């Protein structure tokens, strides 16, 4: 292997990964560029990345006035926060009990959790929808949040994590007279932040992006989550007003992408942890 082929191979390698990255990033480039183009501009020169006459203001105004973007983003934040907090409050005690306490149901629960991992919302949506419809609970935060309050995946993830925690830590706390709730709050949770962050990323990404369930239970715009709101916007903006559409997409994509760019390392760690263990 001489130096020449080495540099050639390396150049080829760099070219491939860079070219791939360029393709993967291209949609973002076009999104940002098109969000600033006037209608005439979009129709005449699709490969020109720099808008001829900047229409960012016009397009963003359209995007912000047709559908209330702030309501959408706020709904997204409220729904994701509620889901995550309840999931954690429910899953951590359960996972702790299954990992560290001896009780007969633990084994059965393990089977239930493994079965639960198989069942996505798409499979349970019909009966839950029928029940919510009967109880007049549709079109509410409750309807958006309730089915996700139990995360078997969360239980599974925390269970794996807690099993690896030393028993001595818990015994010592018990000798100090702490209750089980006290142990969870003051010993388990402070030591479980890596698992909690990983789960937070998993949960928020999943529910921020989910379209299926909100589409089913929400028909009132004021409860729409970001993906659903964008569908409404597309419907209202029928036709080819891609400038305004791209502006709306930009506003809606931005929060999670910004969070990802700021906390990349955590995201990647979280995905590897939740991914490999899931």
């Amino acid at each position: 292997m001489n130096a020449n082929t080495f540099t050639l191979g390396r150049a080829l390698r760099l070219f491939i990964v860079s070219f791939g990255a360029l393709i993967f990033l291209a949609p973002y480039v076009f999104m940002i560029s098109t969000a600033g183009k006037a209608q005439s501009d979009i129709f005449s020169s699709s490969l020109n990345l720099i808008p001829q006459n900047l229409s960012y203001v016009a397009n963003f105004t359209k995007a912000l006035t047709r559908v209330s973007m702030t309501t959408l983003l706020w709904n997204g934040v409220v729904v994701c926060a509620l889901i995550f907090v309840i999931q954690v409050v429910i899953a951590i005690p359960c996972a702790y009990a299954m990992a560290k306490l001896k009780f007969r149901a633990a084994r059965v629960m393990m089977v239930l959790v493994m079965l639960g991992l198989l069942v996505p919302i798409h499979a349970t949506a019909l009966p839950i929808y029928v029940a919510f419809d009967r109880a007049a609970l549709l079109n509410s935060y409750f309807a958006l949040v309730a089915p996700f309050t139990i995360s078997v995946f969360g239980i599974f993830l925390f269970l794996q994590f807690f099993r690896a925690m030393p028993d001595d830590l818990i015994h010592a706390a018990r000798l100090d007279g702490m209750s089980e709730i006290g142990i969870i709050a003051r010993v388990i949770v402070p030591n479980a932040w890596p698992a909690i962050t990983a789960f937070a990323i998993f949960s928020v990404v999943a529910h921020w992006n989910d379209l299926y369930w909100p589409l089913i239970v929400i028909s009132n715009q004021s409860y729409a989550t970001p993906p659903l709101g964008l569908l409404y916007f597309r419907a209202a903006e029928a036709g080819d007003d891609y400038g305004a559409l791209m502006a709306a997409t930009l506003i809606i994509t931005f929060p999670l992408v910004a969070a990802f760019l700021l906390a990349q390392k955590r995201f990647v760690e979280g995905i590897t942890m939740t991914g490999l263990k899931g």
Partner: protein
Amino acid sequence: MAEAIAAPGLIGKSSARSTAERREAHSGWMLSLPALVLLFMFILLPVAAVILMSFTDYELGYTGFKWVGVENYADLFTNRTFKRSLWNTTVYTAIVAPVSIFMALGLAMLIESEGIGRSFFRTAYFLPVASLLVAMATVWQYLFHPTIGPVNALLRLVDIEGPNWLGASGYVLYGLSIIGVWQSVGFNLVLFLAGLTAIPRELYAAAHVDGARSSWDRFRLVTWPMLGPTTLFVTTISIINAVKVFETVKTLTEGGPNKASEVLLFTIYQEGFVYLRVGYASAMTVVFLLILVILMFLQYRIQDRQVHYS
């Protein structure tokens, strides 16, 4: 006699232990009770209900229902839309899963062996995973636009008249597949990168000593077997995610044109939540659930047979 004397002490000890045990079991129950109740309400009960409803002709808005036995299932397999939907889902999965797995593996190995820009490349490929799919689907709709879209404008530069990616029945599944691959490569890539980093360097040195000189040999003898568990996991997740394709179809094509992009979850959604034929949609859901069960079962089987290196 000796036994009789020893007995009270023994009983005392074991009953002390059993009160501690009983208390532990009691807290175990209390701590897992909320999770159990919710698990029952939102997973077990609904699954049981879906299975039961699949044997009825229940429609939302009507009061009564009749038990119809397996009629819904018999209907499903003569229903052209459903058969089309199963077929389209299969084609989509057969494209998206392998392409996104091998593309991610290839890119991960290239990025891993390249010193420069590792975190930049990882970010670039991962960005689609963190982006709102409904939003990015809208961007792809613009990119794929037959007349004003950049993709066909680029193709025109080299004198190719591009197809109507999302509007022609012969192309729509390919268009959606491209979006699907774009969206899932980054996730697989991150998992493969983690798997690659975990391979001990000494193994490559050992393989080299044993005569594995070419990079293909190194891949065949070290990388591929060591990545086994990661690959299996990535494969399962990729297939399951591809089977669950919905967002892009709902946003861009609504199953069209002419049912050419009708996929499983979209058909279930239409039947159950638009036409409100709950019984019939439940039968479809059971089929969907069975597909997931079979996939997971296959994964467990392969996992059991796999040699564990770690």
